[in-house]
């Protein structure tokens, strides 16, 4: 009975260490990536990349002169330009954060497999120093 108990728990442990925990760590990494995508609004900003900044557009009526028309056109171009630059900056920062998290996730997942060895190593070093 004791043998069966231990084998049962051993099997549970192996499954946990080599499958369940890495799977969960990958899930957490994906969750963080989603959260960062939301926080930096990357999808939305890319979709609205060239929209005017805060809908700040100059409109003009039909019969006005060329210079007013050009004026309005320039204003709108600037508004879109500001919007595009601001959005690109945020998208860039967001992308870098996501890349960092992705890299960290890979390191953690791979490192996880070696955690038991690492623990034994540390204990061994500590004992040896003593």
């Amino acid at each position, binding site marked *: 009975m004791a043998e069966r108990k231990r084998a049962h728990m051993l099997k549970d442990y192996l499954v946990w260490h080599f499958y369940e925990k890495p799977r969960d760590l990958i899930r957490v990494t994906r969750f963080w990536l989603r*959260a960062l995508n*939301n926080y930096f609004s990357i999808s939305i900003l890319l979709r609205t990349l060239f929209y005017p900044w805060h809908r700040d557009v100059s409109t003009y009526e039909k019969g006005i002169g060329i210079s007013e028309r050009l004026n309005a056109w320039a204003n709108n171009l600037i508004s879109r330009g500001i919007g595009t630059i601001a959005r690109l900056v945020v998208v860039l920062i967001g992308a870098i954060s996501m890349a960092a998290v992705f890299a960290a996730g890979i390191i953690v997942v791979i490192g996880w497999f070696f955690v038991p060895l690492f623990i034994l190593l540390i204990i061994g070093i500590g004992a040896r120093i*003593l």
Partner: protein
Amino acid sequence: MVDLKKLPFYPYILLNALIPLAFFWYFAEAFKYGLVIFGLLWFAHAVGAFSGVYGNGVAGGLAILSFGLFAFFGYLNMFFQEKLVLYTHKDFVSLIDGRKDGNIPNLALALDFYSATLLYPARALNAYIVLNRALDHPRLSFVFERIGIDRNAFRAALREKMRNVTGADAEFLPQLLAKAMDIAQGHGHNSIAVGDLFSAAVFLDNYLKEYFLQVGLDEQDIANIVFWEETAFTYRMPRRRLNAHDLLYAEGIGKSWSYGYTPHLDRFAVDVRDYVASKHPDLHVTLRQDLADTMAEVLAKDSANSVVVVGENGSGRTELIYALARDIREGRSLSPLNFKKIVLLDVGGVIAAAGDTENVQQMLIVILNEAARAGNIILAIDNFSDYIGTEEGIGKVDISAVLAPYIKSNVLQVIGIATFIGYHDKIAPNPALSGLFNAITLPDMSATDTIRVLEDYVPHFEQRYRAGITYPVLKEIVKRTDELIADVPFPQKAVSALEEVMVSAASHRRRIVTVQDVDDVIGRKAGVSLGTLQGGEAAKLLDLENLLHQRIIGQDLAVSLIAQAMKRGRLEVASHKKPIGSFLFLGPTGVGKTETAKALAAIYFGAEQQMVRLDMSEYQQPEDEARFIGSSKNDLDQAFITKVREKPSSLILLDEIEKAHPKILNLFLQILDDGRLTDAIGRTVSFRNTIIIATSNAGSNMIRQAVEAHKDFSSFHKELLDYLQNQNIFTPEFLNRFDETVVFKPLTKENLIAIAQLLMASLNDRLRQAHDITVAVTDDMLDAIADIGYEPEFGARPMRRAIQDTVESIVADKLLSGKAPRGSTLAISAADIRAKANVRM
């Protein structure tokens, strides 16, 4: 069937029995501290801060070893936690279905790890053994605090029970788990948790039920407290600084960049989320999710997508909008709505800033244009009906004409907040707005939901007033405010009451709020005496018959019936859905029916003035229904139902009830049955704290004849009722609704003399106070007064007049002629009295 061995984590249960798995966590923590200590020592040694026994190597080695052991135990702890704590049975639902189909599945499979450890070993278990094991579980501390009993006392009681109860009941464990499964399912779990076991044990065991009844809690309350603990636990979980969950639902950067600026709007509007969060920082509970979803569906449409939320002030309309706003801002609502803002526009502020009507309209146009152009604004307007319609007055402006075009052309969405009256009078009939707004009506919040709202406020109030609140206190608040405060809805009246109770407790420097505190505060507010009967009041109730007889002469049977009904009502043995007592007084005029009602009002409600009196002969036409329940807002103020709304604890006296129109009598059927009536605009008024007395002279002749024939009154009673029904004076349904039909007998000579005695005593009191004289009361004198003061058509009513005309006259003469010096006792003969009476006639 219950077989723990089949559980997938059974080996861990056995391991836990040997070494509690919590120890892994303790060891990890211990080595963590070891790491810190030795690490500091090592560092100190390395920088030469001190040298000594613990040389560099030793400190360093211990530090590294501590770290390794910390990591080791931490790693194992992580394994056990994830394997066990997070375990849920994948087929919980199929276990429940299996039971329903009559199969006998292994109920143990529904247990979570902690509950399973409580049940191991599973030999000879009963409720007391299980609970004794469960008592130290950390999650149950909250439950015991909120129940309000001492855990150690409970433990002692359990141990006593465990000693006395021997012999195993094989059915106990399957029954316990079956009940626990139902509770778990009701709470939305996928497995049986410790709290579910606790609730189930209370449901199944009578001793436990009675134990908790001591603090006024039944088994459903215990289950509710366990549920409270679960909700509170979720929100009390420690939040780490960098929380992905927060990021996922945060507004983040850049979402509002494609929407327009709104400088003018921002001057007069505030985000609903900020507004509600400032009033109620802990708002978590989302009741009425179905209404929020309906609102979202309407707002997400392409057209006709504005809403009016209709409900009384204090029924939670703004909180409902807040719940929706929170979902929308976190991107969890329907996609056309996601990431929009709901802002509360202060129209009053606009009016104040603008000055005159034309300016108001211009400013509004600017604001509405901004909101429309911004693209992500939903406007909410409180007291919406105040700004609709052409009433003249300060602060009254009609914005419907300005608003309508924006809504019609689907460039702007509005959420209006209105009361029932406001909606029916102003918004619904308005042609400009008809068809543009969908009405969402808030039904009255139930008592159970109100308790959950109060639970939400508890942390905030406890911190502020530094006193603890138990569940019985919350239950009592909801119960008493439901009974006694009719003109404010839930949850507002309960929340206000809770705060007042907390303030009172804080001012008395109490650490724990009790049910008596609640009764004192709310009773004071409503002018009613509540709570456990204290010395004076208990004596009053027991002595009620005598107290009534002090004012009412004769009518022993009547007084006895009334006293019994009152005792039942006050001790709440009777159903609390009806009025405290309802009586039909039958009998000739002037025999004490009204006097009885006045006496009862004085004794029970503290003053004769706590009475609402109606002369039912004024309600003989069908149109008179309007004066009863009102027909529109204007009539409502004078209507009878409003008087009761304002005085929910009073005695209602209906004179000559047989004269009322049948339509009105039908309204009374509702009141007598259900204790409630709905007024003309749909608000309910509670009659549950009133005493209703209807009087009638119908059948008086029959009563008189029965007395003269010395009939037995218990059988005559039925004869009288039959007569009344046969003559179509009252319908059977009407008569049956009363708690008692009381027959008042005509007064006998002895009664009259006794009344005369009472009235003379009252006269003597007045004379003593005013002139320090008294009148000697003799039997002859009383006899004379009784003769003069009685007339068959008017009963004893003329007696007061008779005394006035005779005795008081004579006394006045004597006073004026100096024959009544202070301190003297005047002698007035019967002959003088009769002579005076003849003169008058």
